[in-house]
């Protein structure tokens, strides 16, 4: 009985159709119920799927289902088909689970917005697309979900379309994503013309025989796919859209731009790990981009004052971690961090949402402070999340992040430099996250009276999801406790069948993992300890700067003003893109239109017409109306013709 997977994406689709087609005809509670129920239903199915998979033997944990043929064109044959295996199982659980919580949260958060129907329709559509993405059994269907989520993020970012900035951000997100999709498309083309199919199992099976390992072609494929990933998962150079995406409603940021959609890139690389393992160059690139993004975003995060933007950059940074993991061929670690990150980052955003909710839609942390006593639950849950992301031992973030760091250091694709970068980033993360916490919840209350008067803890519908997520952010990591603590890495073990040796080569616990680049367990412990220490230091610094001696913060800001402005302005990357790409493009277009089109081409057409008219005017003058001149013309003709005859 494995033919019910299609229900997972179907339910949200139904929800979307109901809410979408009957837009404005349904009462608010009905809409809420439809929306949440549909997602919950697919969550249930997802759980069932999960357990069915567990029931199967590890090697046979694949459930495939083909609905119908989508595009049949010669030997190009693509089905609407779904595939559930451990990897997608993890994803659907995260998507539906976290998704459901966020739906619930939204019912309260959007309770005052007139466009709630539209909102939930979009949200369901998003869930549908995301599930299609993770369940697709071929690249093209994945691409469908891939673009689908892009569309939804466009719609949801621009949800408050009357705000110029919002619609701008939406457009930006979509177009930047398109650039990524462009790479994805080309990747697919190569795969198809090489393998003759886009079906995942087929491709993965055929890849080793079709492609030369380390060859240019496979590298091209991986890199092109990775371009897609950078677009979707906001990596350098295409990360610019994510911060702006914060224009959308906060739950949207939580769901799309933290927990699920942005991780699609990671998922896709994990899904195609077979290909990536065949091209160490591609892996190298992925790792470098990942590390660079992680560090850069973290630095920017230091200087942001908008609470959501801080979280946004932290998201970018965390995604960088995941790519770093993939880049060092430790896809398991990547996916693991993906999951934990989904928990705590969703929590953080929702918390931020509740804060903004309470602050009557103010987002600037400089106007906050001391909120802990007004929003106790929010405060506590967010604190947990912060600890988790900072990597305090025992919480989910710790395990996932440290696995990544360790792999970056130890894996044969890894390199100490990666570790160093990751290590530094960990410190930065801890610092800016605690900066956020202190600025928001501690210290004197900087908000104006009016806002202060309205401060209140959010309703149950919002706090309950917070608490659930808090729990998850704590325990979420325990499924992946590394071997050194003498337990099997359940998570790695679970994903093993999907990974072509990637996670598998050191999966079995009792194997002493000297294989990991020849480093011992001792090393791993040391590094772990080091990072913990660094994190604690960072937290202390944040405490001193933003709690104890705020003057220091300002002092340092003065001292490093140059650097500070650079960070505040996000390295001026938006500006650079605008100056280097957008502006010239517009210029060229105008030139093409006004000059090439109007002047050259039409010029030639109308010009030749004009020449005819002119010659017509000229010739008319010959027609003087004097009969004798006609006779002259006549005689000229006679002379010529007679001469011609007589001569030849």
């Amino acid at each position, binding site marked *: 009985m494995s033919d019910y997977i299609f229900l997972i994406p179907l339910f949200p689709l139904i929800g979307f159709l109901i809410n979408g087609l009957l837009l404005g005809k349904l009462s608010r509670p009905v809409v809420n119920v439809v929306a949440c129920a549909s997602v919950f239903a697919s969550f249930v199915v997802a759980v069932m799927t999960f357990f069915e998979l567990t029931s199967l033997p590890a090697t046979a944990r694949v459930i495939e289902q083909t609905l119908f043929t989508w595009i049949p064109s010669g030997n190009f044959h693509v089905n609407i088909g779904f595939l559930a295996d451990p990897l997608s199982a993890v994803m659907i659980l995260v998507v539906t689970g976290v998704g459901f919580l966020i739906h619930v949260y939204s019912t309260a958060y959007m309770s005052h917005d007139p466009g709630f129907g539209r909102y939930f329709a979009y949200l369901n559509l998003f869930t549908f697309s995301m599930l299609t993405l993770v369940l697709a059994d071929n690249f093209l269907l994945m691409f469908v979900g891939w673009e689908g989520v892009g569309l939804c993020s466009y719609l949801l970012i621009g949800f408050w379309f009357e705000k110029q900035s919002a619609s701008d951000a939406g457009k930006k997100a979509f177009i930047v994503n398109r650039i990524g999709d462009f790479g994805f498309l080309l990747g697919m083309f190569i795969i198809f013309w090489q393998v003759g199919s886009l079906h995942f199992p087929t491709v993965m099976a055929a890849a080793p025989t079709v492609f030369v390992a380390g060859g240019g072609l496979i590298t091209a494929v991986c890199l092109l796919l990775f371009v897609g990933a950078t677009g979707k998962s906001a990596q350098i150079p295409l990360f610019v859209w994510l911060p702006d995406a914060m224009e959308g409603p906060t739950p949207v940021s939580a769901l799309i731009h933290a927990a699920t959609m942005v991780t699609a890139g990671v998922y896709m690389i994990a899904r195609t790990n077979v290909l990536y393992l065949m091209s160490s160059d591609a892996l190298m690139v992925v790792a470098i981009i990942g590390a660079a993004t992680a560090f850069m975003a973290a630095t920017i995060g230091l200087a942001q004052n908008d609470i959501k933007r801080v979280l946004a950059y932290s998201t970018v940074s965390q995604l960088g971690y995941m790519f770093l993991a993939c880049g060092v061929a430790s896809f398991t670690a990547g996916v693991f961090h993906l999951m934990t990150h989904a928990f705590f980052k969703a929590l953080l955003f929702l918390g931020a949402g509740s804060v903004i909710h309470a602050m009557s839609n103010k987002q600037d942390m400089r106007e906050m402070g001391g909120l802990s006593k007004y929003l106790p639950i929010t405060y506590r849950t967010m604190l947990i999340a912060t600890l988790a992301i900072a990597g305090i031992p025992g919480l989910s973030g710790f395990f996932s992040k440290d696995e990544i760091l360790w792999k970056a250091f130890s894996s044969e694709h890894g390199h100490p430099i990666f570790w160093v970068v990751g290590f530094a980033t960990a410190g930065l993360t801890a610092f800016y996250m605690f900066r956020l916490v202190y600025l928001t919840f501690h210290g004197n209350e900087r908000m104006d009276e009016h806002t202060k008067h309205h401060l209140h803890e959010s309703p149950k519908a919002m706090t309950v999801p917070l608490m659930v997520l808090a729990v998850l952010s704590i325990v979420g990591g325990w499924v992946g406790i590394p071997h050194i603590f003498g337990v099997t890495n359940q998570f790695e073990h679970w994903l093993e069948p999907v990974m072509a040796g990637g996670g598998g080569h050191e999966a079995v616990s009792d194997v002493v993992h000297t294989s990991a680049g020849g480093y011992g367990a001792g090393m791993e412990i040391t590094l772990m300890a080091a990072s913990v220490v660094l994190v604690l230091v960072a937290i202390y610094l944040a405490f001193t700067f933003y709690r104890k001696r705020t003057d220091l913060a300002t002092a340092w800001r003065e001292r490093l003003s140059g650097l500070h402005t650079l960070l505040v302005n996000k390295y001026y990357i938006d500006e650079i893109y605008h100056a280097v790409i957008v502006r010239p493009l517009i210029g060229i277009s105008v030139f093409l239109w006004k000059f090439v089109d109007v002047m050259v081409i039409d010029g030639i057409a109308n010009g030749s017409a004009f020449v005819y008219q002119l010659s017509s005017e000229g010739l008319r003058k010959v027609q003087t109306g*004097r009969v*004798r*001149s006609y006779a*002259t013309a006549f*005689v*000229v003709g*006679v*002379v010529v013709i*007679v*001469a011609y005859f*007589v001569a030849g």
Partner: protein
Amino acid sequence: MSLDTVIFIFSAVVAVFGATMMIVQRNPVASVLYLILSLVAQAVLYIQLGSVFMGAILVVVYAGAILVLFLFVIMLLNLRGTEDLGRGSGPLNQLTKYVFAVLFVVELVFVVRAGFFAETIAVSVLTGPPATDGFGSVENVAKLLFTRYLYPFELTAVLLLAAVVGAVAIAKREREDFATEEGEAAHSGDKPASPPMEKVEG
């Protein structure tokens, strides 16, 4: 140099002279007279060529009838070349006219001379085969006209009829016009050149 030649040269010169004078005259009457002169000279050439009858006809009909018609018209219109024809066309224009006209003459002459030099040509260098008796006589012309050229001869009748009808239709004064009812309304009086006339006309 036989008498023949002398006559030929003389009449040829006269013919050409008359023609030339005709076109350079300002007074039409004079040019008509010059044309008559030229025609008479041509008639002489006809006769030299053994076409006595046609020569006579040329003088009688052409000089006698057609050109008189010209004179008649000239008198009718009372033209004495007094009208100032204004400046003619510009010098360049004139030049081209003359150049091409002359070119044309040269061509014709060349054609004739080419025929002249061609050995195998039927048009013999000399005056051709001796004229068969009665060549160009009235009888023979008549025979031809009423046998072989009967049809064209009849056609000339049609032609002349058409010409007469046409000439009348055009030249006739308006007063006694036949015209249908609406027709009457359309034209009033017969001083056509006057602008109001044009208006009614237009």
